[in-house]
């Protein structure tokens, strides 16, 4: 096993919290169950990692296997990345999209390789007919940097792709081209939509709403906010698994004055959550 691959695997496993170690290794499915059982998971993390790396060496883990582990780690820790959304479009009146996942993957990789010899492309199928793509960029003279990869999550036969924030902006046009061509689209634009939470972005662009009926409640007597002489000045931070829905329910719940600021309410309709507010 290549030294760089060994180092890469070691650093990836070190990132994994102990509570998730077994789950992630099982999902990776590279080290078989019976071998994992021979490892002492109660020892110090550094020693455990050493044992695991030795096992990987004995099984001749490749860069491909290491990249797959990295994808799985990122899938478990998707909130550590900031995700952008790209929207693709087709020419009107095109034929029915017969999306073939294998052809998409090979086409995507081919387009990247044609432009850049030093690139590592890895795929992992996900539920709902989606695919996670991991790209490690290199240059003409340097091997790919495995520690600064870009991730793309694409749901087949949809116009949206979610990409993790990339420091190397120079590779974005190539990535965009590969995505567009491989998925049978013609154009691609970056949306003003960004979040750490893929599920929220999905809910907004796929317009998945629950069938809610809001009721206006007017009994809100007493409490610390009622009947004050002076207004209460404070900074309020909102956080929620479903922040937009929660904000929408503030006015009907009698907690906020309606209408809410359009900055908050326009997010689902406009598909934007990234605003630049300037002084006039």
């Amino acid at each position, binding site marked *: 096993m290549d030294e760089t691959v060994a180092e890469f695997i070691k650093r990836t496993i070190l990132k994994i919290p102990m509570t998730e170690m077994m789950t992630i290794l099982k999902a990776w499915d590279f080290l078989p169950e019976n071998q994992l059982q021979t490892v002492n998971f109660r020892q110090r993390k550094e020693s455990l990692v050493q044992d695991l790396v030795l096992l990987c060496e004995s099984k001749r883990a490749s860069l491909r296997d290491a990249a797959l582990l990295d994808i799985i780690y990122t899938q478990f820790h998707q909130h550590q990345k900031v995700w952008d959304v790209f929207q693709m479009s087709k020419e009107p009146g095109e034929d*029915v999209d*017969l*999306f073939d996942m294998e052809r998409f993957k090979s086409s995507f990789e081919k387009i990247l390789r044609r432009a850049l010899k030093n690139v590592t492309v890895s795929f992992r199928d996900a539920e709902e007919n989606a695919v996670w793509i991991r790209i490690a960029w290199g240059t003409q003279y340097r091997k790919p940097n495995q520690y600064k990869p870009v991730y793309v999550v694409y*749901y087949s*036969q*949809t*116009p949206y792709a979610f990409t993790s924030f990339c420091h190397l902006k120079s590779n974005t046009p190539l990535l965009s081209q590969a995505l567009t061509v491989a998925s049978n689209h013609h154009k691609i634009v970056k949306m003003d939509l960004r979040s750490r939470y893929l599920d929220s972005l999905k809910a907004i662009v796929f317009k*998945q709403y629950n069938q809610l009926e809001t009721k206006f409640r007017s009994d809100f007597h007493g409490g610390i906010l009622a009947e004050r002489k002076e207004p209460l000045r404070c900074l309020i931070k909102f956080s929620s698994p479903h922040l937009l829905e929660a904000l929408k329910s503030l006015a009907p719940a009698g907690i906020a004055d309606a209408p809410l600021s359009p900055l908050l309410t326009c997010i689902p309709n406009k598909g934007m959550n990234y605003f630049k507010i300037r002084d006039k």
Partner: protein
Amino acid sequence: TAGLNLGLRVLAHLERLETQMSRSCKNLEDPPRETAESDLGTKIHKLRCLRDKLRAEVKQRQARIKASTANAEPDQTLEISEQEAVGGKEENMKAILQAYRFTGLSGKRTSRGVCVCISTAFEGNLLDSYFVDLVIQKPLRIHHHSVPVFIPLEEISAKYLQTNIQHFLFCLCEYLNAYAGRKYQADQLQRDFAAFLAGPLQRNSLCNLLSFTYKVEPQGRSFPFCARLLYKDLTTTLPTDVTITYQGTDASSTSWEEQRASHENLFFTKPLYQVFTSFARNGERLDMSLVS
């Protein structure tokens, strides 16, 4: 008001003429000449008729102005007819929904319009439901929906929503039912006939491309057939293109070719679970023949 002013001016002119006439009649001692009198007479008659007509018109306009100033909105008549049109659309919608309840289409009134629920089914199995929340306005628009993003809802709306809501609902029903049926077949194949497949089924969001490697004898070790099913018509649950290839290593090619061809025909004409059920049954029959 311009007409009103004109009318009043003409009336004033007529009155002046009348007073002039009566004055000139009083002043003239001699009987007027016949032709002059008859000329003036006709003129007066004509003017009187015009005066009566204008008076009537003035009265009408005054009445209309009174009526419209009594109501606050100046465009009341225009709004009423729009409301009637909207009300008409609602009634139409109700009638459509009542008629189509049996095809899996139902709806309920909302404050904005109507929320239509499309229940899908395939071969007697009730599958997922989807809703479309319509706002009855000009133009008719979709407020919320739970239609999957890969169903061409925007295309269908652009074609039919404004002009033929019946067709819009029908078309959407077709797409959703067909998608649900294809998905059901693919899920069922993966779940109930996994033993016949080498690995997972390759599919996509619309379930309109399925690719898998399979065998027909559950006890067989190899998976000699490759299937590639394309559903180019998104409103159907049977494939439009079927390609079966034989990748086995058996020397006797004619029987395999016959099987391959018969498989193709099966996939074209029957839902997936029926195709594999018949494979399983044929396998049983084969076993029985070996025993006897």
